[in-house]
């Protein structure tokens, strides 16, 4: 019997495993993906997309209009994201509190937990001279048009910029352990200093609650394995945790299971410039919009780019026109609008066990998208873009909800103490507990909430 079994090693599960191990608790993390390291991450974009994500690269909503990217590797999403770490603002906390009735959803009470995360994670705020060509065009044009923007704060400690390292590669895992993924921080430190145990390639299929413990059924390297845990912590993310509870028969107990899903849908546009922009060189992402007007309208702009295969996909056309457009790859600047979407999505599991995500865009979502795209169009045009390519595809990279936290058992799955309503020894600590879309990158807050649970467990 294991005292604490954690399912998932991303921003939700890793901080919990670290502190339990540090305090000498009997604890094991199970992770469906591989345990790779900076030396073994895939070296090409093609291999990264295939190896590091569920579905062999991509998953879809029910209509295949929206694609989702969900990491499957030790460290979870923190391996493949940009590690942009923003605290929630009052707007986000107030909306969470209003939807959930959870008292501690406010800036003052959550600040100590963000600070606790910062004890282990190095934060870095970019400087003017660190902008690459893409960021310079973005920031200078925003200044010209009177749009607010800010330098981003990122989890990183030594990206090797002086040696010429190009950070776009770390979308497939940072080969320097500079990016402050949970692998580079909580997990590796936990293993080294406190003997944290982690079992990779282990997919949990079902759980059965037995009162004072939970039985966990898993497939591990082709074999079935059964674990018994006094305390179970679910941290498999919005899809993973919701799917597991669904498959384990919890939908009957929790009418809200699977509901209130949101994903910050993102829409990318490219502008063709006269001179090379080299958006793929240097620091990949150093600036984003920071504008009260945009925030009030429910969108933000991010200054991004993509490696060639992703760019080829995003362009949405083919043939010689496509190759001719790709030949100008170094000449594009690029940005995206991410919207604060309504949480009307639903994660379900069919009778055959297939995960289905019903996630349409609402009228309000479309209005927010259109307003954001209009601003992007203005920025690209003002920056001198000769041609604008707006991608026909859109993505959900921040998967949130499905097991939302709240005080009302009919409208939520998880209680304010992180336990499933009515269960003393099953906890949830990941983005599935988000009551609605904050409109802010979720990673930092997922970790801060796990630190709050740590206080309870330790």
């Amino acid at each position, binding site marked *: 019997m294991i005292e604490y079994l954690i399912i998932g090693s991303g921003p939700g599960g890793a901080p919990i495993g670290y502190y339990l191990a540090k305090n000498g608790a009997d604890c094991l993390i199970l992770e469906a993906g591989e345990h790779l390291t900076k030396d073994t991450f895939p070296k090409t974009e*093609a291999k990264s997309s295939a190896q590091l994500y569920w579905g062999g690269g991509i998953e*879809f909503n029910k209509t295949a*209009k929206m694609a989702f990217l969900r990491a499957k590797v030790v460290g979870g999403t923190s391996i493949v994201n940009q590690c942009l770490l923003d605290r929630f603002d009052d707007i986000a906390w107030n909306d969470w509190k209003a939807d959930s009735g959870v008292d501690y959803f406010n800036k003052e009470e959550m600040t100590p937990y963000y600070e606790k995360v910062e004890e282990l994670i190095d934060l870095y705020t970019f400087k003017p001279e660190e902008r690459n060509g893409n960021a310079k065009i973005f920031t200078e044009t925003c200044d010209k048009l009177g749009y607010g923007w800010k330098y981003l704060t990122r989890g990183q400690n030594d990206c090797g910029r002086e040696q010429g390292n190009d950070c776009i590669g770390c979308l497939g895992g940072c080969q320097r352990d500079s990016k402050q993924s949970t692998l580079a921080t909580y997990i590796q430190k936990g293993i080294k200093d406190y003997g944290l145990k982690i079992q990779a390639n282990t997919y949990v299929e079902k759980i059965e609650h037995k009162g004072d413990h939970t039985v966990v059924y898993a497939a591990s390297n082709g074999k079935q394995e059964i674990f018994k845990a006094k305390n179970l912590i679910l941290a498999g993310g919005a899809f993973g945790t919701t799917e597991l509870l669904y498959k384990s028969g919890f939908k009957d107990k929790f009418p809200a299971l699977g509901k209130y899903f949101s994903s910050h849908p993102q829409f990318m546009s490219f502008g063709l410039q006269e001179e090379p922009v080299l958006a793929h060189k240097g620091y990949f992402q150093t600036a984003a919009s920071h504008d009260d007007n945009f925030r009030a309208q429910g969108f933000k702009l991010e200054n991004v780019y993509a490696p060639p295969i992703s760019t080829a996909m995003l362009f949405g056309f083919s043939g010689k026109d496509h*190759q*001719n457009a790709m030949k100008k*790859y170094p000449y594009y600047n690029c940005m995206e609008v991410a919207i604060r979407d309504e949480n009307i999505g639903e994660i379900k599991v069919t009778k055959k066990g297939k995960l289905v995500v019903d996630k349409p865009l609402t009228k309000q979502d479309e209005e927010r998208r259109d307003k954001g795209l209009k601003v992007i169009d203005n920025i690209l045009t003002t920056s001198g873009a000769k041609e604008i390519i707006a991608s026909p595809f859109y993505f959900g990279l921040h998967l949130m909800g499905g097991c939302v936290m709240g005080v009302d058992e009919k409208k939520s799955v998880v209680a304010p103490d992180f336990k499933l309503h009515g269960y003393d020894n099953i906890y949830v600590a990941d983005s599935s507990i988000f009551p609605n879309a904050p409109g802010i990158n979720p990673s930092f807050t997922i970790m801060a909430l796990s630190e709050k649970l740590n206080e309870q467990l330790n």
Partner: protein
Amino acid sequence: MKSAYFSNRALKAFNRMGDVLLPKNGQFPSFSEFGGIEHIDDLVQYAPKGDIKDLNLLMTILSFMPTFVIRWLVNKMQNAGNMGNGGVGTLFRMLNFGIRGLIFSCYYTENAGSTYQGERPIDLVGYDVKRV
């Protein structure tokens, strides 16, 4: 070449569809000329087995079709964005991501086919990333 996941006919269909999506164009090799399809198993080994089995069947069937049918399918796939929710629209959109994704992944990549001697598409587009 041999694949553990796709029949020879399916691989031929990938090459035919790849040449529609990515033809010979100046310095750019055609998809089949570049030969990146040789490495397709490296990519699909992580995908759900059922999906790959279905894709193999579809591509095998397509291999018997004339080129105009493949062109028609490519056109439908690429213009499926505004087709209705569910049914055929969903299928075309999924194929667009799945098949185009595999074809582009085998083209804009470091790994050329064993007999290809020319410049790689990834170099032609100027993707000169340095990892230190």
